């Protein structure tokens, strides 16, 4: 019996392989539908996937910003002691490695603005803005950075088409890790 045992074990291991390993995991996750995940499923992708219904312009956004954003970001996004960095402008990126990054000089995708405003702003009341308010605030920030016009309508279709000035300014550091 001592001579047979190792070979039997080997045959069993080969026969079941990874299938056996998979079957042994506890499987304690409960199935859930994508519909029931919706409240958390807020990431907007650079191609616009995940953008909600709604729309807004910079003109509308100026009002949203004055009411809900300027308390920290200052009048017209020029900054305040709470959030000193201006939300527009910025020196050319060749000005030095410590050049402050802005929407205008750095962001590669307009969806970054929308996504972050929607998930994180206002800082003390995140995820309280309506879809229209987020589109309007995003339009206002893009207009402040001279990327779109004052009355350009931002919605799920137009926003991802906005080409950011620094879209092609990036080098993937470790492509082999992707």
């Amino acid at each position, binding site marked *: 019996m001592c001579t047979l045992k190792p070979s039997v074990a080997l045959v069993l291991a080969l026969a079941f392989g990874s299938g056996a390993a*998979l079957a042994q*995991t*506890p*499987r*304690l*996750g*409960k*199935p*859930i*539908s*994508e519909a029931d*995940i919706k409240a*958390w*499923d*807020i*990431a*907007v*992708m*650079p*191609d616009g996937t995940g953008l909600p219904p709604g729309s807004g312009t910079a003109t509308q956004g100026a009002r949203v910003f004055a009411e809900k954003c300027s308390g*920290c970001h200052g009048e017209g996004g020029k900054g305040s002691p*709470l*959030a000193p960095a201006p939300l527009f402008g910025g020196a*050319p*990126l*060749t000005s*030095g*490695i*410590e*050049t402050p*990054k802005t929407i205008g000089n*750095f*962001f*590669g*995708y307009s*969806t*970054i603005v929308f*996504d*972050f405003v929607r*998930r*994180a702003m206002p*800082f*003390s009341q*995140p*995820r309280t803005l309506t879809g229209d308010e987020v589109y309007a605030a995003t339009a206002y920030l893009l207009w402040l950075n001279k990327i779109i016009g004052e009355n350009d309508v931002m919605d799920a279709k137009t926003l991802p088409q906005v080409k950011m000035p620094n879209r092609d*300014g*990036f*080098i*993937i*550091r*470790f*492509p082999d*890790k*992707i």
Partner: protein
Amino acid sequence: MEPNIRARQELERLEVVAGNGLLNRRAFLRGGAAFAAAVTGYTVAGSAAAEPLKDDPWSLEMGAVTPPLQTPSRFEKHVVRTLSNPNNELRNSHARTPHHLLNGTITPNSMHFSINHSGLPDIDPAKHRLVIHGMVRQPLVFTVESLLRYPMESRMAFVECSGNSAPMFSNQPVQATAQALHGLVSCSEWTGVRLSTLLDEAGIDPKAKWVIAEGADSLALHRSVPMKKALDDAMVGLYQNGERLMPGNGYPMRLLLPGYQGNMNVKFLRRLKLTEGPAMSYYEGKIYSQLLPDGKAYRFHFLQEVKSFITHPSFGLKMNGPGYYEISGIAYSGNGRISRVMVSADGGKTWAQAALQEPVHSKAFARFRAPWRWNGGPAVLQSRAWDEAGNAQPTRAEFVAVRGETKKPVTNLLSFPNQHYNSITSWGIASDGEIKHVYA
């Protein structure tokens, strides 16, 4: 012969292997008792004889109650993290690890660095959920209790903010402790569930190339993780050095991506979405993309590359006269094990190999040590590390040539002029024993 004189002669005979008094790292082993005697003799030579011994008050009465949760001695109250936002203003807050006051390779949980972009959420583990969805066969939701029943594994891993050491982008050396310069890295033994186990249960669509990880903090901070990493050594971490995660380190669960940017190790983990492409989130699209001197920026840096720094002696500590010292520090690499650390006492002109404390773990702190006899003259201490993949920690000149430095000296130690600094740290020691941060 006087014992002190004999001891001094023993020490003089120890093999000097590099300039300015660096001794062979095997001096401890080879020298044995003679070495210990030599060191002791040298240290007490010339000092007054010790006082006669007597009992102190604490040796003559019953001590304090044994508490349920013990904290360090009241004489160690100065060994704490330093804070960037002690009044919890509406912005992020950092707490830095006091490396110059610690030793070994494990960071105590109370002193693990912590960066919180919107404060510490007060998460009830009974209500916390982790959902896996997107490009999977069946979306699944897990409770903390259910994950605690999974097969677990433990591993050593450092976690480093990619903004660690950012003051060293300054064109002039900033005078600061190892805590202020390098306090945004720590190392723990993490215990949790392999991420691949959970992803396999949900059923991975072969077209999925990324996992978007998101936290339950008020910012719902999210980062894109390549599927390659998720299926390699990623873990859903539940325990830190044997106890459940600290709130500042992600309680009740965090993503652990050994060797990758701290920010990608998403804390308070509540959602994993499998996708074809990356989210280009705020933190990967702005904060953690590094600007280069030519105006381009690195994206998806991921790796915390090979690095080391000396913690003893270092700025903020005092030299206590010429004689024997142990140079000691920390080395680590996101690429694997540290294979070698060299130490210099003459600003990089000559180097001696440091001893590595065994066992050396992959993607974890390695403690290096090198015996040194300080002759009381000016010295510049440096360490340089290599990892098992063959990567060398860059010299400052090499690093600055590629990554640049600021045009003006950095004056705010809490600022992040750039990210991913992994070059050499130099401590200049003057004849009076004062230690300064220098570039050499």
